[in-house]
């Protein structure tokens, strides 16, 4: 938990991996997920790297895997998820896997090819029998309808010069969508020399490749003339028709048909056998493939990581550079030693100095993850910067709850989140793929706290589904008021509104122990009372929150050793913020404490006082709050305004002076400078992440980068942003008031318009009961949809904004990048 406050110390380490053990080492590192490799070969293109051959082999294997997987999928089977620990395979295992995969793939291909061939054969047979089965039909029909046409040459043939000319047949089948085109082409190419009849096959046949059923069209072409025959054959070839021998005699055709049916029967049996064998092979694939896939993926990842290493001059070892948390260094050392012990030479780790900003590593657990997520969504923190996440754990749900304060709604949200938290280990919940559900599930602890805090603020506002609850007896007594002022019945009948006077003894017995007195829910001026309260509360919360942000900046400056910023930035900022808005908070609190009911009539107005403070004037009608106010107020304004130039000029001037001093010192001692450079690594290692503004002499690189105008510019922007921001941000916190008002009003409207209307309906018991069912249903649905989901989202959004903009811009730069270690762990597990 301590590591939540700022990101962990991360060191750049150099790993010397003996060539023999490099693979084992990196695969072990992948299992542990400790280090992030830096690419040392950025200038080398992908296919010129050292292990590209191995990567390619893995890819080849993956290609085969894809083929196998596709086959399994096509067969309508699914691959089970791999179980157990599967380490990256040894290079020699790769050969075995490769061999087995190839064999399996080959077998599968063979069997599938066989099946394909058998199917095609069967298809052919079926088509043939279809053609034969229908063949006599059309020819008979043709002889009837086209009788004269056909008979004429036949009659001639008996005695004419064309004695040897006889009618020939071409019979076959064609795919349905080509039939029309074929028919047309036949007619155009050789019309007058043939009679063609087309008809649909009686039953649908499955295509041998696609397996989709289709109604083929069978045709029978009778023609005479050998040349025409050749043409027809060419045309049928071009349309990929299946052409079958067609015997004229009907008996012979019948015999052929029977034979065909017998053949196809036999073929079906063989096909069945093949299918059976295929399913066996697929079963083997199903069993073997998933672990292999995981293993080869790991292997490829290892080789890709190894590709980022450079080779030492002696070729004895690979050198890798990696980021690793300092805390994990011993584990890293151990892991490397363990996995390189077989090779005889041990892998070595040692830290090396580095000028680059290390990556940010903040370890989270399932509770803190969602809060860290809120911060990271704004920007990943710079290395070792103060991490706002731990404070967000409390402030975020709290600010949300201020806007969402309602016991009932909060309780519903809390219960929903609690259910998710309790069920979080169930596999069905974990593996749910619905994106909206996942979003809620990831933020379940956030929701839990948000619900809990809403219950708390709900009690403060004394609202439960917009109704007040009287847990304790109210501090106001109407009876006492009635008795004391002697209201008569006639007076009561006349007056629609009556007011309770706290100055009358016995009417106001003392403040309500916790939250808002329930009696207010009966009052007409309930809203104006709450508004005043919520507005002041918003300002107080806002100023506190912002001040806290500025104070957090102190830890940043202290950590990075920038002591001058403490004095030149944080102090002026604090004075400015507290002198103006801190004073406003003081006024509010002071008035709450000091002005009693008795003196309420002549109470001074804070607003007028605050305006007068900036105008350096005073209005005679407004009584001072406390003695000495005329002195304190101008002093605070002057002090605050005096801080602006300090903030604006302090840091740049200081840095400029430092820079000049450093420069002159270097000119005096040129020798010492080189020594300083040599010493530098240690100092920079001790406090990495310090930017160029770091005090002292941070090497010539930073020296060259120092440009006065740029620093001035930066500081000017920062100053303007802060000073104007103080005003606008304080105003921005008023959204707490606005949203909580909106929420309260909306829930009140819902209650009054739906539920109360339903309750006041129907005199008879039975009718009321029946009517209440739909009324309550509507109330429940609208409560969840509008008040919980919609209002919840809007309050969430505003809380998010208050954190990102108003809070984090006081200290958080968020310009870092995350440490993404090399790991085999699958995302989302």
């Amino acid at each position, binding site marked *: 938990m301590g590591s939540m406050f700022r990101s962990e110390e991360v060191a750049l380490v150099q790993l010397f991996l003996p060539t023999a053990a490099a693979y084992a080492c990196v695969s072990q590192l992948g299992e542990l997920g400790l280090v992030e490799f830096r690419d040392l070969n950025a200038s080398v*293109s*992908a296919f010129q790297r050292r292990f590209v051959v191995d990567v390619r082999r893995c890819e080849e294997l993956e290609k085969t895997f*894809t*083929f196998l997987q596709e086959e399994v999928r096509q067969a309508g089977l699914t691959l089970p998820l791999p179980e157990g620990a599967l380490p990256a395979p040894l290079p020699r295992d790769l050969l075995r896997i490769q061999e087995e995969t190839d064999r399996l793939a080959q077998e599968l291909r063979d069997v599938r090819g066989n099946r394909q061939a058998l199917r095609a054969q069967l298809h052919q047979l079926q088509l043939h029998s279809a053609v034969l089965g229908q063949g006599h039909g059309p020819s008979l029909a043709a002889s009837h309808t086209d009788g004269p046409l056909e008979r004429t040459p036949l009659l001639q043939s008996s005695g004419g010069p064309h004695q040897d000319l006889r009618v020939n047949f071409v019979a076959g089948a064609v795919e349905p969508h080509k039939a029309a085109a074929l028919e047309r082409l036949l007619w155009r*190419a050789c019309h007058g020399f043939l009679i063609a009849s087309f008809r649909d096959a009686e039953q649908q046949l499955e295509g041998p490749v696609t397996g989709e059923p289709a109604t083929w069209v069978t045709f029978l072409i009778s023609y005479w003339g050998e040349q025409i025959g050749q043409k027809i054959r*060419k*045309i049928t070839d*071009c349309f990929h028709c299946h052409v079958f021998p067609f015997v004229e005699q009907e008996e012979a055709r019948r015999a052929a048909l029977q034979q065909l049916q017998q053949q196809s029967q036999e073929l079906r049996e063989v096909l069945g056998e093949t299918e059976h064998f295929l399913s066996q092979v697929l079963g083997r694939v199903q069993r073997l493939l998933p672990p292999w896939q995981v293993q080869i993926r790991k292997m490829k990842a290892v080789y890709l990581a190894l590709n980022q290493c450079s080779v030492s001059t002696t070729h004895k070892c690979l050198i890798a550079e990696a980021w690793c948390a300092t805390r994990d260094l011993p584990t890293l050392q151990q892991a490397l030693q363990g996995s390189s012990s077989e090779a005889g030479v041990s892998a070595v780790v040692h830290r090396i100095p580095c000028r680059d900003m290390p990556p940010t590593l903040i370890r989270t657990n399932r509770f803190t993850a969602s809060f860290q997520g809120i911060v990271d969504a704004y920007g990943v923190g710079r290395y070792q910067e103060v991490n706002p996440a731990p404070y967000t754990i409390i402030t975020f749900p709290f600010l949300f709850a201020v806007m969402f304060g309602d016991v009932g709604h909060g309780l519903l949200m809390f219960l929903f989140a609690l259910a998710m938290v309790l069920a979080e280990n169930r596999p069905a919940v974990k593996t749910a793929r619905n994106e909206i559900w996942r979003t809620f599930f990831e933020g379940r602890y956030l929701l839990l706290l948000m619900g809990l805090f809403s219950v708390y603020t709900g009690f403060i506002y004394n609202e439960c589904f917009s109704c007040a609850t009287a847990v304790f007896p109210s501090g106001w007594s109407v009876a006492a008021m009635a008795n004391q002022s002697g209201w008569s019945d006639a007076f009561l009948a006349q007056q629609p509104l009556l007011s309770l006077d706290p100055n009358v003894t016995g009417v106001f017995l003392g403040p309500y122990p916790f939250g808002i007195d329930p009696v207010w829910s009966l009052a007409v001026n309930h809203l104006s009372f709450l508004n005043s309260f919520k507005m002041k509360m918003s300002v107080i919360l806002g100023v506190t929150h912002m001040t806290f942000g500025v104070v957090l900046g102190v830890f940043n400056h202290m950590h990075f050793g920038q002591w001058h910023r403490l004095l030149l930035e944080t102090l002026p900022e604090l004075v400015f913020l507290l002198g103006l808005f801190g004073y406003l908070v003081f006024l509010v609190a002071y008035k709450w404490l000091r002005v009693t009911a008795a003196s309420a009539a002549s109470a001074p107005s804070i607003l007028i006082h605050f305006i007068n403070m900036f105008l350096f004037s005073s209005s005679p009608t407004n009584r001072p709050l406390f003695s000495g106010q005329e002195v304190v107020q101008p002093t605070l304004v002057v002090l605050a305004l005096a801080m602006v130039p300090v903030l604006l000029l302090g840091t740049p001037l200081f840095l400029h002076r430092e820079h000049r001093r450093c420069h002159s010192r270097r000119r005096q001692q040129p020798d010492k400078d080189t020594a300083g450079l040599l010493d530098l690594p240690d100092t920079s290692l001790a406090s990495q992440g310090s930017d160029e503004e770091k005090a002292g002499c941070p090497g010539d690189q930073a020296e060259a980068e120092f440009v006065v105008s740029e620093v001035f510019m930066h500081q000017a922007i920062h100053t303007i942003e802060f000073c104007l921001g103080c005003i606008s941000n304080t105003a921005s916190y008023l959204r707490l008031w606005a949203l909580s008002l909106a929420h309260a009003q909306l829930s009140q409207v819902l209650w009054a318009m739906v539920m109360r209307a339903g309750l006041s309906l129907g005199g008879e018991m039975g009718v009321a009961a029946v009517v209440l069912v739909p009324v309550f249903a509507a109330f429940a649905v609208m409560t969840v949809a509008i008040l919980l989901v919609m209002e919840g989202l809007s309050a969430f959004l505003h809380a998010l904004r208050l954190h990102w903009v108003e809070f984090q811009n006081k200290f958080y730069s968020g310009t870092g990048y995350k440490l993404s270690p090399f790991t085999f762990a699958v995302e989302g597990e």
Partner: protein
Amino acid sequence: MLEGAELYFNADHGYLEGLVRGCKAGLLTQRDYINLVQCETLEDLKIHLQTTDYGNFLANQTNPLTVSIIDTEMRKKLCREFEYFRNHSLEPLSTFFTYMTCSYMIDNVILLMNGALQKKSVKEILVKCHPLGRFTEMEAVNIAETPSDLFNAILVETPLAPFFQDCMSENTLDELNIEILRNKLYKSYIEAFYKFCKNHGDVTAEIMCPILEFEADRRAFIITLNSFGTELSKEDRETLYPTCGKLYPEGLHLLAQAEDFEQMKRVADYGVYKPLFEAVGDGSGGKTLEDVFYEHEVQMNVLAFNRQFHYGVFYAYTKLKEQEIRNVVWIAECISQRHRTKINSYIPIL
């Protein structure tokens, strides 16, 4: 076309135009070419192409990689894209697409007829046919013996039919006649396409007409160049020139009289093609006329993308993609034949 076609262009063709511009952004860049040229083997080439828009288009190839496989697969990819465009197009864009395929269909028909003449099997030649110009009746081309046979039996239903008006003859199809048939077909095709674009008006005409004019003139030059030393008479030659180019009519007339390359060059002297002929290197080194024409074409096609709301982008994209395929095939050929000296003479697409 009504005025202000920009207003409703997107309603019908906006999706496709967006798509084609996206596809154009996926063309190989200069950087990719530099990397491709450095490849040692075809496998390297494949790995490199995987990082581009081609993705793993060769992933399912189990056989060892050859140049022709790469060529076929790249063409297939182009064809898939084109089919997608075509299937989602509305009139008149779909007619425009039909016109685009016609040139490939002509090439295929001629290829098949030549094959039939040389008694090669249809299957063998089918492989060489461009997939964009495929049509069902294509394979039956070899049953025809005369051009009118060809027209009446086979091509009458295809979009090529209108282009046949000028070439109906009863001549037998020998090699020269086939070549003449091709050029006549192409002439009427390009003139029809030109007319279509012209009638369409608007930006499409502004973009497509210059491209087609150039195409016509290029054909005229190439025909002239190829007819030197053949038995083709000058009058016949002139009938083959497409008449929609910038050279029409005087230039074509002069071109018909040209007897060698120098004379041809003189024809081009006064027109827009002068810089192109000047860029041609002589003899061994330098670019060939063909390369220079290709470069000019690429330039025009790239410029077509500068305007919006017209059909020219589809034409330009297809042509650019074809050029890219030619480039990659060239590089692959150089790699596989270890002939690295000429590897850089691909035509860059900028």
